[in-house]
């Protein structure tokens, strides 16, 4: 099966028009020495039925979340996704469209981006947002590069409370640009502020903290704001979870210059880590806006004075500025941004708060119970949001595999990040019964 519909007669008619006998003649411009003179060794040619059976069979070799009660988080969260989202983004006008180059035939995509930018600004407490970046990790890296361009400094203070994978991506992007990364350690599960203060000086480009951080802890943002404000040129980058901002004071109110993070929790399915979307917002000041990476949509009017939307401020971008562009960003995560837009609209003012509140309360209910157990100890009881770190003298691997026997994914084993302990995340989807059952099983260990 292929998707070619020209018939033999039509093909002959086309060849005649071109003035060749065979298609092969057109390919004569490829030199013989680099031509592939055999068939591609790629299996396939499946009918739709055969393909679906085959992929169904493959899927059954997985054990998906359908089979488990999951407490996994660490950057990808199992929140409730309203059913209407998939229906709406399955409209071909959204998902089969290209980047909105011809604005007049792309008003749907462009207005969605404008609404997305507006709601991201509102959530994060910032003035301007872009149309999305590739994921939370690369968005953090882009935010760091942006801060370095604005401050013209090279030193980056990275909190050890930032997701380890984000720290790694930041290094991958930053090292070639001669950025100098200094890691600021933890005190308990939050950034060590004494260490931060000691490392802050006028040569610092940016301080990067996560709020709530990798362990779910709420950083002492008021103090971080004070420390940072002693140095005029230093930027504060806050990596955040947008769901927590349904309840928490937005980073903009803690002096953030750039806010970034992973937009997956806003209605995107887990999909084994992607496609997700990175969001990025910043202060509404010229020196920031000029350095934003990626696309931005703006409102304008047409020749008759009607409101319309376009991609704008494109003189920052690669297709215009080439080697002088703020980033190489071209394709972003537009459809995921559309998902998040529809999610934010559907949940709205009350819903986003309710998701955050229920996740918070259920997580604290569970954590209190786990903390009471002899063999388990919650490390950040006093400052976490909906994710927390548990320590145990029992072998973590065995704890998790015993839970898995009972169809529970009891959290992320931190050995994955060369650390001891378990990171548990509780979303609004978990029921009291599920929470109690987990506690019961842990108690019996």
């Amino acid at each position, binding site marked *: 099966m292929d998707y070619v519909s020209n018939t033999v007669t039509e093909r002959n008619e086309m060849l005649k028009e071109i003035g060749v006998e065979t298609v092969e003649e057109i390919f004569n411009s*490829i030199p013989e020495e680099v031509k592939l003179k055999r068939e591609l060794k790629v299996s396939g040619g499946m009918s739709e039925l055969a393909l679906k059976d085959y992929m169904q069979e493959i899927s059954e070799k997985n054990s998906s979340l359908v089979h488990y009660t999951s407490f996994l988080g660490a950057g990808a969260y199992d929140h409730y996704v309203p059913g209407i989202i998939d229906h709406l983004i399955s409209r071909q*006008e959204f998902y089969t469209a290209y980047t909105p180059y011809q604005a007049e035939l792309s008003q749907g995509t462009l207005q969605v981006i404008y609404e997305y930018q507006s709601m991201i600004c509102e959530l994060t407490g910032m003035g301007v947002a872009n149309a999305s970046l590739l994921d939370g990790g690369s968005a953090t890296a882009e935010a760091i590069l942006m801060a370095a361009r604005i401050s013209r400094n090279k030193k980056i203070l990275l909190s050890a409370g930032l997701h380890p994978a984000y720290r790694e991506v930041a290094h991958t992007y930053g090292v070639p640009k001669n950025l100098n990364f200094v890691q600021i350690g933890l005190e308990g599960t939050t950034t060590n502020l004494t260490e931060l203060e000691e490392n802050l000086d006028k040569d610092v480009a940016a301080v990067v903290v996560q709020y709530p951080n990798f362990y779910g802890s709420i950083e002492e943002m008021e103090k971080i704001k004070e420390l940072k404000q002693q140095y005029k040129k230093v930027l504060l980058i806050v990596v955040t979870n947008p769901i927590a901002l349904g309840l928490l004071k937005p980073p903009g109110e803690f002096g953030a210059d750039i806010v970034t993070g992973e937009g997956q929790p806003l209605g995107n399915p887990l999909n084994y880590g992607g496609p997700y979307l990175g969001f990025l917002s910043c202060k509404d000041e010229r020196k920031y806006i000029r350095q934003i990476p990626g696309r931005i949509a703006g409102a304008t009017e047409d020749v008759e004075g*009607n409101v319309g939307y376009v991609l704008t401020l494109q003189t920052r971008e690669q297709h*215009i500025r080439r080697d002088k562009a703020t980033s190489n960003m071209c394709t*972003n995560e*537009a*459809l995921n941004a559309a998902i998040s837009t529809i999610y934010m609209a559907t949940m709205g003012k009350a819903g986003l708060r309710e998701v955050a509140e229920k996740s918070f309360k259920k997580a604290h209910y569970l954590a209190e119970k786990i903390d009471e157990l002899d063999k388990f100890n919650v490390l950040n009881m006093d400052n976490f949001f909906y994710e927390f770190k548990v320590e145990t003298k029992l072998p973590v691997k065995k704890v998790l595999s015993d839970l898995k026997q009972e169809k529970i994914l009891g959290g992320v084993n931190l050995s994955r990040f060369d650390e001891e302990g378990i990171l548990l995340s509780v979303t609004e989807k978990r029921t009291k019964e599920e929470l109690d059952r987990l506690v019961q099983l842990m108690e019996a260990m």
Partner: protein
Amino acid sequence: MAERLIIDYSSPGRKGYSLPPLEIPEVDMGDYIKESYFRDELKLPEVSEVDVVRHYTALSELNYGVDSGIYPLGSCTMKYNPKRNEDIARIEGLSQLHPYQDEEDLQGSFEFLYELKRDLAEISGMDEMTLQPASGAHGELTGLLIIREYFEDKGIEKNKVIVPDSAHGTNPASAVMAGFDIVEIESNKDGMVDIDELKEAVDDKVAALMLTNPNTLGIFEKDIKEIADIIHDAGGLLYYDGANLNAIMGYARPGDMDFDVLHLNLHKTFSTPHGGGGPGSGTVGVKEFLRPYLPRPVLKKDDKNYYWDYDRPKSIGKVHAFYGNYGVLVKAFSYIKTLGGKGLTRTTENAVLNANYMKAKLKEEFSLPYQENSLHEFVLSGVKQKEKGASTLNMAKRLLDYGQYAPTIYFPLVVKEAMMIEPTETENIDTLNRFIETLQKISEEVENNPELVKNAPHNTSVRKLDEVKAARQPDLRW
């Protein structure tokens, strides 16, 4: 008619969602969080489910997708996005997977990802692939970082990347992000790499030449072997921008042209939808000697199981927090398994046939700046029409009036009033003829009534938009 913003549908207290009950005893959040950390207000919409559905349906109706009709954007490969791929990507056992689940729970997905890597390596003639980059530009950056790491590891100092003037803008932008300086070389009169100019530009500080082949004019660089030798003899590497793979798949392989690194846009050649600008996937392929530098982790297989290998001391590190755009990879795999090697080759054949048919039909009416044979896309110039008063931009907007999408315009930069047309294999002769007739008609309109074309579009939901105003008085949010 314009559709108002979702926030304008708000009515205080209106809701469009329902959540499970709390069930547990009430928790006082103030016991855990300081009062000053709670936000005061959240000005998000207060709307019903019906409001949301109607609003976003209304917005979708202002859009044009591949299912609406031809989308002849050059270098974008806007082919049909098969529906079966969408169905398969939604199979629960494939999609409801958390990135930190145990590997034993993921063996099915690993099996197809591993096969996808092997298939893409076979199609492109490379030895190993990484599926981690999430877009074409992300792939470029990854590939260039691999090159950079390789030279650093070997202790060889290199700081330059050569990019032809016809290259995609992402090429120089990615090279700069990877820490290189750019040397731009001009194309020759046939639109190809000027060998003399290349020789002049090459020295022992050149880390790589980035090339699209066929190039953005749709022309195959026939001297590719010589070009490769020039670069390799000077100790540099060859980078292939895979945006135009749809022109050669099954006919020639970048690996056999001596390219060392490449990226492939799965959202172009391999039919995954563009989603209005993403998600994509920019998987990267390398030759054997560059394998150690690939991003972590690398998907491997022992005699029993598939697993992620994180122990990669020479790796450039991660470029994505997880493993890339997995959901896109499922769709690309479905596509490849539907077509197989034969189907992929037939795809190329028809993409090239379609483009050359259109070129033959249009080259009289418009100017053809480069006479060389082209493959899956071609570039016309609207200079004749421009002289009569209507620019390529005007003609592109006029196409929208006829319910058809416009080609890529003003790119490549080497062509004045450029119109870069790539029909892809999934359009048939009837659709092509309709598009050709429309373009010819517009050219006649330029002759007889240039004002009509200059003031286009007339029939779209909004008329020509003021981009200058948008940039000078930015209105970027409500």
